[in-house]
Each structure stands twice: as structure tokens, then as C-alpha cells.
């Protein structure tokens, strides 16, 4: 089998034009063990990417959920740790950009001026950082940001032409909606995604042609505040009544 034929064969398998368990594929694997190995490894890469995708989703969901505990002792401690890291990074960035290399080594007037300037800047930064940190401790506890309510359609639906949701929050600035062909929430092929929606409803644009979507979908909506912080997310599964 030439290199081109090998590549075409593997591409057919990846595209699903050829079933890896078919007699034709199995016969080729039997003849060419290296080809069989290559296919196994390609499958493993695909599976690893897929598993990694789920892994990242789970990690992010857990991390975002931790915001609900911002008031707790551990939440406050984590915030302090983040503030401290940024202070360090800002100080270090200032040191790298403001202190001229010549000033460190030459010891001349220019160098002393640079040293004085950078020392003054560093001192200012320390004062700023201290006042910022004190401000952080004085900050009022985060308010309850609100929650998404009913999502429609949910369950059996006549069509997928209008998606609506409610939210109990005054902080909401925008929504992102995602629709998937589905077997379970969060899984399946993405059919549509829209970000920056200002209202609590969305009609798929004609380009989406929602009438061609599969009969079972899941959809989710995420509410964001004006800073882009997530307020809440919710999802629904629905099935279009038999056509």
C-alpha cells in the first residue's frame, strides 16, 4: 500500500466512510500490523482529547462554583493569595522595566538617578499595594448574584424556533446560549452558539435552520454580569414532537 493509499485508508476510517470493524478494514490490518497500530494510536489520541475536554469542563465547573463560597474562610484566603500574586507580579514587572541595566552596574549619576527613581516607584507601589490590600479586607461581602429560572422549551416541544428563560438578577448584562444535538446535557454536536444576547429569549437565525436539527437537543444558557463574570448557568433537554 502506497503512502497515499495508507493516508486515504486512515482518513476513510476517521471520516466514518469505512468501519474499522468491517471485513475490508480488518483484512488490511491483518496484512499490515503497523497500519493497525497507527489506527489504534489515532483512536487513542482522539479519545484522549475527548477525555481531556470533559476533564477541563469538570475542573472549570468546580472552579467557577467555588465563587459561591467567596465569603468562607477558604474563599477569603484564596482571594488574598491571588491578590498577593498580582502584587508580586506587578512589582516584578516594574523592576524589570524601570531599572536600567547600566544603572545596576555602572554606579554613575545616571545609574544613581535610575536607582532612586526605581526605589521611589517601588515604594509607591508598596504603599499602593498595601492600601489596595486593606481595601480588599474592607470590601463588603459579595452580593447574591441571582439565578436562572424556567427554561423553555423543556421536555416535549412543538418546534425549536424560540428559546426563552427567566432570571432573577439585576446584575445580568448578557447571556450566552448553546444548543447541542444530544444524548445527555453538555454532550453531542454543537448546533448553535450565540454570545452577548441582551434579552431573555433567542430565535435561531434562518442560517441555523433549526427545522433541520435532530429531534432531541439539549440547550444551555449562561448569564453574565457586566464584568463578564458568570452569574448562573442552566440547561434543559427537549424532544420535538414527532413530525
Amino acid at each position: 500500500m502506497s503512502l497515499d493509499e495508507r493516508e486515504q485508508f486512515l482518513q476513510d476510517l476517521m471520516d466514518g466512510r469505512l468501519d474499522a470493524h468491517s471485513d475490508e478494514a480488518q483484512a488490511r490490518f491483518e496484512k499490515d500490523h503497523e497500519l493497525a497500530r497507527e489506527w489504534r494510536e489515532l483512536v487513542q489520541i482522539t479519545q484522549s482529547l475527548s477525555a481531556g475536554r470533559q476533564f477541563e469542563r469538570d475542573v472549570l465547573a468546580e472552579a467557577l462554583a467555588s465563587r459561591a463560597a467567596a465569603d468562607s474562610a477558604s474563599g477569603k484566603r484564596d482571594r488574598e493569595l491571588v491578590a498577593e500574586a498580582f502584587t508580586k507580579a506587578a512589582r516584578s514587572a516594574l523592576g524589570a522595566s524601570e531599572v536600567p541595566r547600566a544603572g545596576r552596574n555602572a554606579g554613575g549619576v545616571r545609574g544613581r538617578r535610575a536607582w532612586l527613581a526605581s526605589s521611589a516607584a517601588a515604594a509607591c507601589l508598596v504603599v499602593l499595594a498595601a492600601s489596595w490590600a486593606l481595601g480588599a479586607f474592607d470590601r463588603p461581602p459579595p452580593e447574591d448574584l441571582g439565578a436562572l429560572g424556567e427554561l423553555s422549551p423543556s421536555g416535549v416541544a412543538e418546534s425549536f424556533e424560540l428559546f426563552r428563560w427567566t432570571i432573577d438578577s439585576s446584575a445580568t448584562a448578557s447571556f450566552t446560549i448553546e444548543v447541542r444535538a444530544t444524548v445527555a446535557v453538555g454532550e453531542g454536536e454543537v448546533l448553535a452558539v450565540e454570545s452577548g444576547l441582551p434579552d431573555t429569549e433567542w430565535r435561531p437565525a434562518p442560517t441555523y435552520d433549526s427545522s433541520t436539527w435532530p429531534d432531541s437537543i439539549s440547550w444551555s444558557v449562561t448569564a453574565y454580569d457586566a464584568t463578564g463574570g458568570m452569574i448562573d448557568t442552566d440547561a434543559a433537554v427537549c424532544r420535538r414532537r414527532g413530525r
Partner: protein
Amino acid sequence: MRRLLRLMGGDASETPFEQDVQLARDAAAQKPGAIDKLTDRLACVPTMIRAIARRSSISFHAGEVDDMAQNTLIAVWQRLDSFEGRAPLEQWVLGFARFEIRNGLRRRDRDRRLQTEEVTEAPQEQPSGMSSDAYVLLLEKVEELTPPAPEIVRLYALDGVKFDVIGRRLGMPGNTAKTIYHRSLSRLRAKLPADFWEELA
């Protein structure tokens, strides 16, 4: 995690998370209030590190988590200007956290090797399930592919975006995106070292 892209009706240069980009730029410029907002948004980073570690069955003591969180955040700070808003800020930061954990594991292995020269052999951590280490390695290799392959692999394999949508976004036929994706898998296979396959075995 919510999808990252506005899939229809947008051009390739669009940044769906424009507000996050603005926040990153304001924080980098140390504008009043911006660092505070960034701190609120990224206060979840220590939890992120703990979650990655726990889900990979790796145990870190509290001091190690703090160190890795701080290193992650310092790296994020240094790269704030490069954030393009193609994903939410937290997802972008997750990439830094992954790499920092990998570095943390390498440091630990090195320290253990040094210790075992003096003390009796310490038990090695054996992550189970989806190893964060293998996954990070895989993503590193994805990034080494020739553009636009890394973006196509990320969009298709990690974000579940269809090839025709990827094609529209990148200004190419969907079938071309699919071909690039499949060739990329073969190139990834060639790039992955033996220990990747050992981890999966």
C-alpha cells in the same frame, strides 16, 4: 464550560469575550479597580489547581498548591496583553494552571530523586484515570503543529465545533478543515513520545 465562539454571522477576528479582553488590558495597565476585578474573577485559581490535582489523583500539600497558584497567576499577569478573548478568561487561565501543575510534578520528581539518594525510596505518585500529565503533553504537541492546525484541533476536539462552522470561521471550506484535522492527528501521533503511550497503556 460555555462555548467559546460565536459560531454564525461573525468574522474570524471577532472576540466573543471582549469584556474579558478589556479587563485584562486594564489590569495590565493597572487602571484603578481593574486589578480588584481581576482578583475577584481569578480567586478561583487555587480551587482550579486543587480540582486538577484531585481529579488526576495527585496529592499536593497546601503549600505546594499555594506555590503553584501563585506561579500560575504571575505567569498570567505577564501574559495579560496576549489574551485575545477567544475563550472566557478562566478557560485561558486553566491552560497556565495545567502547565504549572506539570512543572510542579517535575519539581517534585526531581526533589524525590535527590531525597532518595539519602533516604529510603519514597512511593511514587501514580495518577489514575485521565492523567493530567498525558493530557498536558498532548496539548503541548497540539500547539506545536503548524497553524491553523492547533486552532482546528482545539475547536473540533475540545470545543465540539463542527467542521463547516470551523471553516466559516477560518475562511476555508469545511472539508479542508476536516482534512487538516485528520492530518494533524497523524502528525500528533508522530510527535508523541513513548511515555505518552505508556501512560495510556
